């Protein structure tokens, strides 16, 4: 009886709920942001990894030179001597976002350094992502599920992995844009409004400007519409939403220089165009159906469908064949034919992010959500409104893509969070209902939602609604059972939070520019070789010096050392990368002309053998060989780098080709000497390959000389020698400098046949 007195009026209850929701959302955003600050606390406010260094450099350029200069930026400090039309080959969304924030803060007289904006942009956007996820899930089920999904999204490691402070990458804002675009799409398709469709297109444009992964949206939405059409759920709302989104979104996306005419030429975008056309046809046939007799309509329909399919197929084939439509882009193609990349595009296959995902990654990144995910899908299937189909399509496609490429875990994580939130929410709605046993709570949130949105629901939804009511009628649960379920799931959720915290702090907060290790006594040891070496380059070399390295380090050299690089992580020119690979894989005689031709002053190699850092150049060497073999199969042969037994050896058994290669020499130059007094002169022990490089194969350098080696030998920099002033080849010059050729000279002066006479 008392309970009844406590019942609020509907209005008050709504207001309190709104207040609570706002507070909870703010709390979630705060958690999302603060859990991403581990890296700043652990290390410092520093830009992470590789690509973020380029984005940071580009942002600085934008802030210093203004938008128009940025748009037309020709970068002569990368890809020497080709240069890069940077303004036209990047997704400017991220830089422009930071630039605008920077500008606004300066208008308010808050002189915050652009670096700090860049470092903290990703955490800030993660709060927005949580909110977008809330909105999206709210459309799927209700506010409570939305809050749960937002909380999951805020702390799920799968998303944190790309959005910790300092991880200033396109994905940092792209996931927010992905979710908000999906939300707006759902809104548009529910309401059939041009306004929401146009808003969706606007955010789609922002997404296109920010991340190459926009293709995911470009294909998700058409697939959703296509499935709806197949299920015979066509209605005018779909027509309005899709047409307004497609027309506006495509036009807008073409304004990004890097995208240009791709939306009407490349095969990746053809699905969206095809569905657009199909939708027009379906709309027209609906119109005809109303005008014509059923029999005539059927005849027209069948003949025109066959005709159109044939025509479209022929046209598409012909245009692809004639080159009007670009064939599938390499990266995208590798998603379908998984062996394609391995055989044809080693550069894509070489990137660790493009490897397939083993199951532990899924569990690591989402913990219990990964098994709540199918449960959520099942529960969504029970209702199956139009928007639910979207989640289902997203779930299947997303998990396929995430399985093929590790980095697409990122696009899967939101749908996992949404589905899991639906599952947990449904579960808790049942089991946390502590009104007196057997009495139905009159104002469950589910019902209210249905009441409010009823006018907009599809006719086919009626069935599912009655089902919900049915289950409500039989709703009856024992207190003990409730208690058991709630306790156990609360425990799992608690574990989930702990898991996320641990993963974030241990796995995803390392800047990878600074490595963390432990001293024998357990204290933390920071290994700062990269910055040491880049700083050395910055302070000790000519300002226009050209530094050659494998492309992984291009962005960092450009960003931290501010020196010209030959290749970098923007792998737009395969031949140029192969050239660098060839120089690394060739002997000194063959490499030197390449180095001269490209005006290389310094070569930077990463060597982990001393410290046991496994991501070093020797481990990447086979990719260099493969990539250059693809261009020069005559000069570089992968087989020659393996021993007769087919092993990849760097020790005494290493093949002659291996030992002669420039990279091998640069990696192990003087390395055995370091161990001279440690293991009785047996040679240098490589902790990564776990092999010993004996003194006898200690490399000798002729055309380059050591310039710098960092504290832990991780980064080694070599200077390329100039042509000899006295006209000798550098091998002779080096021998002379070492005073070694005294004996040789005697031999040559007495035996003149050894020398070549002037001709």
């Amino acid at each position, binding site marked *: 009886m008392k309970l009844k007195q406590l019942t609020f009026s509907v209005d008050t209850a709504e207001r309190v709920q709104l207040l609570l929701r706002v507070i909870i959302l703010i709390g979630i955003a705060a958690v999302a942001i603060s859990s991403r600050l581990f890296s700043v606390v652990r290390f410092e406010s520093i830009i992470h990894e590789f690509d973020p260094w380029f984005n940071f450099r580009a942002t600085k350029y934008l802030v210093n030179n203004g938008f128009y200069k940025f748009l037309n930026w020709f970068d002569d400090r990368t890809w020497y001597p080709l240069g890069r039309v940077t303004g036209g080959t990047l997704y400017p969304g991220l830089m422009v976002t930071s630039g605008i924030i920077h500008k606004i803060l300066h208008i308010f007289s808050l002189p915050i350094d652009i670096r700090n904006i860049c470092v903290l942009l990703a955490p800030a956007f993660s709060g927005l992502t949580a909110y977008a996820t809330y909105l999206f899930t709210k459309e799927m089920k209700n506010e409570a599920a939305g809050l749960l999904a937002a909380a999951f999204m805020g702390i799920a490691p799968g998303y944190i992995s790309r959005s910790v402070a300092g991880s200033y990458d396109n994905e940092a804002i792209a996931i927010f844009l992905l979710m908000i675009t999906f939300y707006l799409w759902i809104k548009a398709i529910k309401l059939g409004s041009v306004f929401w469709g146009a808003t969706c297109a606007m955010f789609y444009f922002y997404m296109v400007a920010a991340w190459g992964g926009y293709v995911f949206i470009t294909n998700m939405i058409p697939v959703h519409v296509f499935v709806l059409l197949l299920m015979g759920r066509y209605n005018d709302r779909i027509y309005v939403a899709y047409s307004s989104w497609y027309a506006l979104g495509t036009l807008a996306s073409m304004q990004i220089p890097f995208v240009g005419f791709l939306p009407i030429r490349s095969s990746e975008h053809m699905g969206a165009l095809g569905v657009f056309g199909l939708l027009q046809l379906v709309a027209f046939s609906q119109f005809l159906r109303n005008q014509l007799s059923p029999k005539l309509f059927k005849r027209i329909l069948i003949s025109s469908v066959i005709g159109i399919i044939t025509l479209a197929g022929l046209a598409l084939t012909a245009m692809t064949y004639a080159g009007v439509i670009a064939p599938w882009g390499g990266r995208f193609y590798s998603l379908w034919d998984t062996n394609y990349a391995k055989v044809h595009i080693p550069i894509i296959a070489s990137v660790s992010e493009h490897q397939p995902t083993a199951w532990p990654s899924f569990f690591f990144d989402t913990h219990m959500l990964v098994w709540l995910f199918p449960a959520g899908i099942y529960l969504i299937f029970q209702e199956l409104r139009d928007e639910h189909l979207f989640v289902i399509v997203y779930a299947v496609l997303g998990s396929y893509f995430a399985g093929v490429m590790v980095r697409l875990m990122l696009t899967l994580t939101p749908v996992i969070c949404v589905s899991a939130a639906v599952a947990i929410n449904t579960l808790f709605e049942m089991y946390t209902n502590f009104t007196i046993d057997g009495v139905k709570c009159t104002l469950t949130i589910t019902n209210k939602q249905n009441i409010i949105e009823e006018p907009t629901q599809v006719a086919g939804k009626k069935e599912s609604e009655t089902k919900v009511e049915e289950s409500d009628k039989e709703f009856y649960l024992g207190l003990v059972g409730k208690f058991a379920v709630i306790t156990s799931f609360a425990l799992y959720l608690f574990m989930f939070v702990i898991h996320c915290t641990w993963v974030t702090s241990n796995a995803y907060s390392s800047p990878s520019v600074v490595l963390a290790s432990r001293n024998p006594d357990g204290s933390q040891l920071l290994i700062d070789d990269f910055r040491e070496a880049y700083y050395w380059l910055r302070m000790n070399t000519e300002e226009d010096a050209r530094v050659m390295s494998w492309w992984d380090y291009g962005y960092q050299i450009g960003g931290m050392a501010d020196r010209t690089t030959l290749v970098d992580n923007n792998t737009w020119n395969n031949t140029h990368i192969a050239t660098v690979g060839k120089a690394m894989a060739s002997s000194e005689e063959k490499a030197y002309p390449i180095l001269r031709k*490209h005006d290389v002053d310094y070569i930077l190699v990463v060597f982990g053998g001393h410290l046991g850092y496994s991501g070093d150049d020797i481990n990447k060497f086979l990719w260099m060989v493969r990539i250059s073999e693809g261009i020069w199969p005559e000069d570089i042969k992968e087989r020659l780098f393996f021993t007769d037994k087919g092993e990849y050896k760097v020790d005494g058994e290493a093949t002659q080709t291996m030992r002669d290669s420039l990279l091998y020499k640069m990696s192990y130059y003087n390395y055995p000497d370091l161990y001279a007094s440690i293991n009785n002169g047996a040679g240098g022990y490589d902790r990564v390959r776990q092999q010993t490089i004996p003194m006898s194969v200690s490399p000798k350098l002729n055309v380059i000389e050591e310039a710098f080696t960092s504290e832990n030998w991780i980064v080694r920099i070599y200077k390329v020698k100039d042509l000899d002033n006295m*006209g000798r080849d550098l091998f002779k010059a080096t021998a002379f400098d070492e005073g070694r050729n005294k004996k040789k000279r005697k031999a040559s002066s007495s035996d003149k046949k050894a020398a070549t006479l002037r001709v």
Partner: protein
Amino acid sequence: MLSKSVFTSIALAVVSSIISPVQAKPAYGANTLVVIDSNIDLSEYSTYFDDLLFRGYELSIKNAKDEGLSLFSFGEKSYDNVILFPTQSKLSEEFSAHKLADFFNDGGNILAISTAKNPNGHGNILGGENIRDFASELDIAISPRNSKLVDHFNYDKDLSPIDHDTLILDKKNFDWTYSANIIEEVTLPILYNGAGAYLGNSELLFPILSAPSTAYVYNPKDESDVLESPWIAGSQSYLIAGSQGLNNARFMWVGSVDLFSNSFVNHKSFETGNRKLVNDLTSWAFQERGVLRTVFTEDNLANTEKVAFEGYKINDDLTYKIGISQWNGQKWVPFQADDVQLEFIMLDPYYRVNLSVESINDSFTTYATTFKIPDQHGVFTLSVDYKRNGLSYINKKKLVTVRHNANDEWARSWEISNSWVYLTSAVTVVVAWIAFVFFYVYSGNSPPQGLKIKKTQ
């Protein structure tokens, strides 16, 4: 003692000397070290030193055995030029091949003289070993120290009636392809007595004088195998060779010390060209002749002043200018040639064009050319790489960035006639849409009659 006598003789020579064709002096530095030892009788070379002093050289004549004699002081080179006479005593570590290489690489010029004679009839020319080591790095292989050059056909009957080792050479023994810029024309016979050398294929080497085809080098102590295998024979044996490092430092090797001697200069029966030859060789070696320098280089957009210049873009016209002057012995004068070329390189040359003379003033010639930058963006190198035998190398490189067209530098759509059809269709759609809206809004509320009928059916 030694130096005193030298200077008296030199002073005498200066006073007595009235002949000197041109009073030339080196372009950069005249501070010259002469390394000798007791077996060198300076009065024998008075004519040569006399000419040097007259041309303004500051000579420091030092005994090889002098304590603390060094090419460098505190890491800087102490002399501009060095003349190494064939000393009998061993040269100190300060004159090792490595030190000579350092000196050369630091821009110092070296005149190295060898000999095949053992002046005292015994012992060896140990100082020559360092020269041999150094020269071999420049691809000049000097004959071993016991060997000598003989020619039984072209010998001087007065000076070597028995040994046949003093050769009479004339202008056909010179390799004029290389020496045209190094020495002036040789009209008189040259007397030569000394070593031979074979030369390698180094690109920086200028062979000047070779032996006649009947000459050969052999070891007098071991005459047995002369016929089968002389050390080197015929015109493959070179007697004088020069080399110029990439830094334009010069090295001159002369295989005969007697070439410089008064007795060869003043032959009793005929007039020799020796005096003129050694002066020419020295003046080339010490940067008096064949010296070029770049006064300036300049690149700019064609027909513009260099104001607010933001770099090139594709299809711009680029003007390149280079000013080159030559040292004539007293001052810098314009250098004139028609084969100076400019290359425009990105990995491979896109252009290789001849530079034409634009203007000449009192000290330099301005060469210039204008060309259209190709339709390719990137970092290009403007390179003038002028390497001619006997002249200083000119190697000027400059990187220029060629950018692509900016977004507002393309032709506007209406300027392209192909686009008119698209523009027309776009305008048509806009007009049609407005018209449609207008008619839709103002054409009344009742739908067309026909439609109504159908619906009721």
